[in-house]
Structures are given as C-alpha cells and as structure tokens.
C-alpha cells in the first residue's frame, strides 16, 4: 500500500472498508477486507483471500463481457486489498425512487441488459443490489462489489442471481419492485433471448418455492 497516499475512509460496509485515495495522480478506491473477529481466524482468512482474488478476476471478466466495472490497478492478497478506479456517480439505490417512471424503466432495462451480458460470459455477480450499481454522468452503469460472485454457466446460479436482484428491489424499493423487476427481465431477455429468459424465470420460481413458508409453494399443493 506504500504507493497509495492520503486515504480517507468513505464507506464502512459490513464486509470491507472503502478508502478514497490517490495513486500515481489518479483518484482511486482502496477496498480492504479487514479480519472479522467473530469467526475463527483460519476460516476468516480463507474467506477474505478467496473473495479478494475472485472479485478481481470477476471484475476483469465482466469487462470482457462489455459490462462497465472499475479498472483494477493493484491487488494485495496479504492485506486482502484491491486498488481500483474511482467511479464518479450515484448509486442506483439513491436514484431509483426519485426519477420519473420513464427514466426508471429505461434504467431497469439497462440493468437487465448488463446482468444478461454478465451471465452470457458465465459471470455471476452474487450480490445484485441497487447499492452495487453506479450511474455516472455519461449514463453508463458500473457494477461494483463482485466479492460474492462466481464463475458459472449453471441455470441455478443465474436464477439465484436474479432472485437476489428481485429480493433487493422488494426490500429497498418495494413501491416499484414489481415493475422494476419486470423491466430488468425485459432487458435481460433482449440480451439472452426469450427462450433462455423463460428458463431462468422458471428456475427463479423453483428457487422461491424451495424457501420455507413462501406463498409460491402453494402452487404445488
């Protein structure tokens, strides 16, 4: 971390802390996963190292799929730290409830397209919440925080990924959750095609039925 000067803590998340810093004249984000005292140190280290390496790899893979992600400058496994490009913009979480219905529709379709592109590349984000999506001034949406992501082409993984998106919309943007998710699916379908999308939607239903005490299970009875 010697090259990174003047760090300011800008976000203390549950998993990692984000510092805004300068690196060779650029504004960068340093994401550090600190040890978690509640779990045994062997387990903790294993989880932090795994997530740090995989996150960097997946962010690169996402770029290959045409999904904007911050460029990675430095990965320090020993500190579980990633130094990456700072994206100026707003979290979709902050915007979604404030913008017009038309803009919201456009944005959600775009999110669906990005998720579709990711899945096409075999990248599963693993934590598709609206706080992990940043809209910049050029109307470009960046996906961040791939810490829980994985490489997979399984229908199951895609289904869980989209199911999480749906859940995030329901818990944080419940007023618009239904229309937003429909628009996300429309965008997804544009990229992945109707046939694949129908399969994923079927899978989502199946995943939802697996949970306990969910209304969707009634269909089986």
């Amino acid at each position, binding site marked *: 971390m010697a090259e990174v000067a003047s760090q300011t803590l800008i976000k*203390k*998340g*549950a*998993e990692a802390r984000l510092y805004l810093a300068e690196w060779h004249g650029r504004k960068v984000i340093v994401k550090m996963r600190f040890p*978690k*005292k*509640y*779990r*045994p140190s*062997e*387990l903790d280290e*294993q*989880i932090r190292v795994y997530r740090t390496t995989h996150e960097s790899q997946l962010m690169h893979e996402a770029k290959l799929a045409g999904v904007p992600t911050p460029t990675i400058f430095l990965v320090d496994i020993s500190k579980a730290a990633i130094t990456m490009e700072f994206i100026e913009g707003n979290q979709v979480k902050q915007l979604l409830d404030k913008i017009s219905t038309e803009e919201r529709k456009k944005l959600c379709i775009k999110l669906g397209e990005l998720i579709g592109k990711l899945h096409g590349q075999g990248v599963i984000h*693993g*934590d*598709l*919440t609206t*706080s992990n999506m940043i809209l910049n001034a050029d109307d470009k949406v960046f996906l961040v925080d791939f810490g*829980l992501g994985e490489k997979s082409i399984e229908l199951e993984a895609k289904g*869980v990924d989209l199911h*999480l998106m749906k*859940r*995030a919309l329901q*818990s944080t943007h*419940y007023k618009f959750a239904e229309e937003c998710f429909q628009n996300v699916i429309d965008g997804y379908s544009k990229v992945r095609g109707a046939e694949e999308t129908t399969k994923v939607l079927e899978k989502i239903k199946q*995943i939802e039925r*697996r*949970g*306990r*005490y*969910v*209304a969707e*299970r*009634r269909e089986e009875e």
Partner: protein
Amino acid sequence: MKRAIEAYCLGIESTADDFGVGISNFKGDIIANASSSYIPEEGGIHPREAARHHAEAADEVLNEALTKAEVKPRDLNIVAFSQGPGLGPCLRTGATVARALSSYLNIPLVGVNHSIAHIEIGKLTTGAHDPVTLYVSGGNTMVTAYDCGRYRVFGETLDIALGNCLDVFAREAGLKHKKGTPLGAAIEQLATKGDKLIPLPYVVKGMDISLSGLLTAATTALNKGKCRLEDLCYSLQEHAFSMVTEVTERALAHTEKREVLLTGGVAANRRLQAMIAVIAEEHGALFKTVPKEFATDNGAMIAWTGVLAYTNGIVTPLENSYAKLRWRIEKADVPWLK
C-alpha cells in the same frame, strides 16, 4: 381487587412441537407461560403426532396457565392464537382451541403471526425498540427489521433453517433428545470440546444463506468416521453461525439501526450470542438476547402480540381464522408500529 379491572389476553402457540399457553395483561406483564412439548420417539417432528400431542395436552396446559395467572376464564378479554407460519395439523389444533374459547366466552379472536410474536416478545423482555432481528429456530432463519409499515426480510435461508440443520446433524450423530434440553444444546456442549476446524461449505449468497450443503458435508464427514464428533460439532457451529452473523452484519450496516435482537430457539446458544455481540459492538449497536423461556416457541409471545394487535384494531373474524401455513412476516400488518 385491583386485578379485577385488568384486561387480559390468553395466547395459544402451536406451530410445531410445542403447545404453549401464555397470559399477558394489556400493559405487557406476562403473568403465565405454560407449555408442553411433543418429543418424537425417533426422527424429527411428525406433524400428525405432534398435533395429537397438542390436542391431548391442551386441557392441562390451559389449566396450568390460568391457575398460575390466578385468572378465571371469564376474566379474559381476548384470545390470541398463532395463525402461521407452521405445520398445518399443529396450527389447526391450536386454532380449534382458540375458536372454542372465543365462542364459549364470547370474546374476540386475534390471529397472530408467529415470527412477529418472536420479535415482539424479544422487544418486550429486552427493552429493544427498533432492532435488526436475527430469528433462528427449527423452522425459521431470517434477518428482519421494521421499515415502512412492515417487518421486512433482509436475508434468510434459501433452504433449511439453522435449528433444523443442527437437529438433523445431532440425530445423525446419534445424540438423544433429553427432556428439557433441545438437541442443539447437545451440539453446543460437544462443540466447546472441539478445537480443530474442519473445512465445510460456507455459502452466503447476497444477504441469503444456504445450509443444506453444509449439513450434507458435515454428515458425510461424520459417516466417514475420520473426525472427532467434538471437532465436527465445533466446525458445524462455526461455519453456520459465521454465515448468519455475516448476513446480520450486512443488514445492520444497511439499515443503520442501533440495536440487534437475537431471538428464536437457537438464540439460547452461547457461541452464537458471542458472535452477534461482536458485530453489534463493531457497529455501535446494543445487543439484546431474548431470555431463554421466551426464546423457544411459547404462548406468552402470542398473548402479548395479540394485545398489540387487538389494541390497534385487529380482530380475526371466525371465517378468517384458518391456519396460514406459509404466512410470511412481511405479509402481516403491524399497525402498532409507526
């Protein structure tokens, strides 16, 4: 004489293996909390057998609660019952008892959401006001918090419940149900003697977790017979508890609430309590655990939640008093919260 003018609610709990009757006055004093548990001869809960136990035990448990509270049936103002979620035959047995009391005494019936009751009794007994709640039991595993008119689920298990995971493993390991001590307690006991961490699946997906793979892996390792049972119990607990603690911490960071409440049957586990206490401290939140007698399923929590519902205009007409087997927490009205 003062007590004659007091208003009382009798609450009936029967979602799974416990049949409980609690009595609360309208101020939130729990004056009785009686229960009887169905203990399966082997395996897990057989819903029909559990329901049969509840039907047989109802009379005695009701009497015990009324005697303890020194309240006559005629002094009751409302009857609350656990309407869901839970096992159908068990829920229906409790609902039948509640309906009978309500129509015999000619007092209102109030259907209560079982998950909400766990949170409300936790708030009542610990003084928490607006916590992030980790509710972990044999049938439920969720991280929930109040937001805009409802309790919202921030994370939950995608498959089996935490208590279920521990129970099944305990049975696979041949641990026996002793009266008064749940199987989870046997695992907790053994885990304190374990010190070698055996690698097992750690599955967190966003805010949700999955425990079925962990259970399978732990069971497989057990059946291979190469690991000490103590180490396996320790490793199972460390992995499973770390997973729920991680999602609780995420919810805490996300909602920025100032309290964390641990409730449900698994809340009695000291190791889990210690883990949650660590993240509460890290986020400057107060950590509260529901007292043991109110941690497992109980009638008192139904009685108290019944009071909250009734005094805020909720009454369940007879025709709507059917068991709601999959009544999710965010589908229930909570007009007593603003």
